[in-house]
């Protein structure tokens, strides 16, 4: 094989990556994608040497991660785009092109990812535009009506129906990846907690897994379990928040306010564990900072019991309302084939019938010993994405109760060593929206040479775009909330 195969969180030697010439590189990657691998990153190994890149692909069926190196030291930074055959690579190629000046030849739609005022092919980038009679354009954002993050949306409409929605992001770009390379280890944890503040634990989990495996740090079982409990409580909180948003967007106030009340209980449980309603300060290299004692366990269990009992009633009420269902069903459909071809991940993928859950396909932390169930729905509409959340909340609460009941004894923090030189690691974690990937490389001085982050929103924004096609523009808020994507996680 021309690719390096590793498992999730497996530290490997940088020298083990073979760097192929451009044609060989392109063909090897195509071959892997033909065999059902998904692209999860396209990035250099060293940010100062953009001419040697790797394509990282995940194979969910075998739980292996493939890495193919490409050597572009000679000739132009050009390669034949994969995106015409494999649309999932489209946005990764745009990102590589924006950051390192590569030109993917015959790319179907090269567009800006995070930068503003981009010049492509010697002229300023223009939004996709539809022309003809009765066609009109709606521009929204970056600042939206609600208290949410900024992003620009361009709708090309024909009457009420949306023909195309172009999503232009980057307003939240704070340079997280660049800062992570320069930061000391205390700053790194805070930075990774701030990649997406609603997925604090998801990202800091991926970050700690990566750094700990680079430095061969073993965690105690107790620490692993506390981490997973926190990560699942975060999932409950975000699912409740999204369900509240969905109910609110169809003007259904009672469930909306009830989900809001339950979310408070979920995040207050995190505050009981670590002092922050978003789980900040819990993770340290080598374990967790705060232990669970009886009082805290009682608070958490009590809160989750209320959520568990009440959410069933509220779900029943919401999902049996004819008015709500008529808005949810067959709205914003992404079918299984489309979802596969554009590489949807996480909750949105599972709602479209794809069995894709990092906790099961690439198990890490306590999920290696304590499995969680795979839940999928087939229809890929707003209903499926809403219903997925309702089912996942129940399954997650069951899982957390199970963890709390059988929590192992022991230390919560172990000694953290030095990072290995000239090494790399791929760390994948299932955040509340889906697959979070952190890819880290060190150089010979044990200093980080590249830190690449992929939030699930990076894949899924395009899914929202496609879900809107042939859908009434008035359903946009509902579709948007059903995906509930992160701007900060995408923009970095």
């Amino acid at each position, binding site marked *: 094989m021309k690719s390096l195969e590793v498992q999730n969180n497996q530290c490997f030697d940088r020298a083990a990556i073979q760097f192929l010439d451009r044609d060989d590189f392109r063909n090897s990657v195509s071959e892997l994608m033909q065999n059902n691998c998904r692209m999860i990153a396209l990035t250099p190994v060293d940010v100062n040497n953009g001419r040697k890149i790797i394509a990282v692909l995940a194979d969910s069926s075998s739980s292996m991660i493939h890495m193919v190196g490409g050597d572009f030291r000679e000739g132009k930074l050009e390669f034949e785009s994969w995106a015409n055959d494999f649309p999932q690579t489209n946005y990764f190629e745009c990102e590589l092109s924006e950051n390192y000046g590569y030109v993917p030849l015959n790319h179907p739609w090269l567009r800006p990812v995070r930068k503003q005022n981009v010049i492509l092919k010697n002229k300023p980038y223009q939004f996709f535009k539809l022309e003809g009679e009765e066609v009109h354009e709606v521009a929204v954002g970056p600042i939206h009506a609600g208290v949410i*993050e900024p992003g620009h949306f361009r709708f090309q409409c024909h009457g009420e129906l949306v023909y195309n929605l172009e999503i232009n992001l980057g*307003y*939240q770009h704070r340079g997280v990846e660049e800062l992570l390379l320069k930061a000391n280890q205390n700053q790194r944890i805070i930075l990774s907690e701030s990649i997406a503040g609603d997925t604090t634990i998801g990202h800091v989990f991926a970050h700690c897994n990566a750094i700990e495996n680079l430095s061969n740090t073993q965690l105690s079982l107790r620490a692993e379990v506390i981490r997973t409990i926190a990560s699942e409580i975060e999932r409950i909180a975000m699912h409740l928040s999204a369900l509240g948003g969905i109910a609110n967007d169809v003007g259904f106030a009672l469930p909306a306010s009830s989900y809001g009340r339950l979310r408070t209980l979920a995040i207050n449980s995190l505050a009981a564990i670590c002092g922050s309603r978003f789980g900040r300060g819990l993770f340290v290299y080598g374990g967790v900072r705060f232990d669970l004692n009886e009082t805290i366990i009682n608070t958490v269990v009590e809160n989750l019991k209320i959520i568990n009992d009440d959410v069933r009633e509220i779900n029943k009420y919401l999902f049996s309302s004819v008015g709500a269902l008529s808005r949810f069903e067959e709205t914003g459909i992404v079918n299984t084939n489309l979802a596969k071809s554009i590489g949807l991940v996480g909750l949105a993928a599972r709602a479209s019938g794809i069995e894709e859950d990092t906790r099961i396909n690439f198990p890490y932390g306590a999920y290696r010993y304590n499995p969680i169930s795979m839940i999928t729905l087939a229809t890929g509409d707003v209903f499926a994405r809403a219903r997925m959340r309702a089912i996942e909340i129940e399954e997650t609460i069951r899982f957390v109760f199970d963890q709390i009941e059988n929590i192992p004894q022991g230390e919560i923090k172990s000694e953290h060593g030095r990072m290995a030189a000239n090494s790399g690691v791929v760390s994948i974690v299932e955040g509340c929206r889906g697959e979070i990937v952190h890819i880290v490389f060190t150089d010979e001085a044990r200093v980080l040479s590249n830190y690449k982050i992929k939030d699930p929103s990076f894949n899924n924004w395009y899914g929202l775009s496609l879900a809107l096609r042939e859908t009434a523009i008035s359903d946009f808020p509902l579709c948007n909330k059903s995906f509930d994507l992160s701007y900060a996680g995408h923009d970095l």
Partner: protein
Amino acid sequence: MKDAVKIRILQGDPIVHDVKNVVLPERYRGLPLIEDKLCADSCNKCAVVCPTNAIKLNPVSIDLGLCVFCPLCEETCPESIIHFSQNYHTAVDERANLKITSEVKSISPQMTSEKIRKYFGKSLKLRQISAGGCNGCELELNALSNVNFDMGRYGIEFVASPRHADGIVITGPLTENMANATKICYEAVPNPKVIILFGTCAISGGVFQNSEALQRKFLQENKIDLFIPGCPPHPLTFINGLLDWLNKSK
């Protein structure tokens, strides 16, 4: 209908009635208190571990405008001089008052001018701008409208358009890409208007302070009325800060 009544009964009475005296979880990190003790000889551990350089020595002080409320300094100090209390009343109206020394045991904003109280004392509508916020602060601002905190009962609400607003609330470290939109939005708010900074990132850039992707000129060009420190600040910090500032907390 029967189901609706059932759900309403489940809802109970979730509202925080007394927003001034809530007991937050034991591990909650609010206003840090600094004991009036001498540091060990040439010890600078707290200043070294601080991820945002918020701590200055001789004597020890913490700048809450930079502090991300992580517990690193508290757990590092060999003399246990620094201690995060559960006090969530941390809003101020002057940047300088965010500097916590051993003499500072509580902070609060000064009552605002009579003009502002006359205009906005009974009804204050705010437009929120996320300028690089990670969605932590945004979620806490959203939580202000939920059934627990229900800020609307004090006449303070978030509105959709800057044209309807009396002021703006900025979250995030002000990215270059949001600089223009922030300025346009502020200009669209009719006079008189206020600016509130919510969260450490907005106040100082926080953990992003050295990023090249920021553009914080807007903050130097305009007067800031209220600073709400925290990462993210607790919703109650925001409510109490505004009530004190508008002199409504009786």
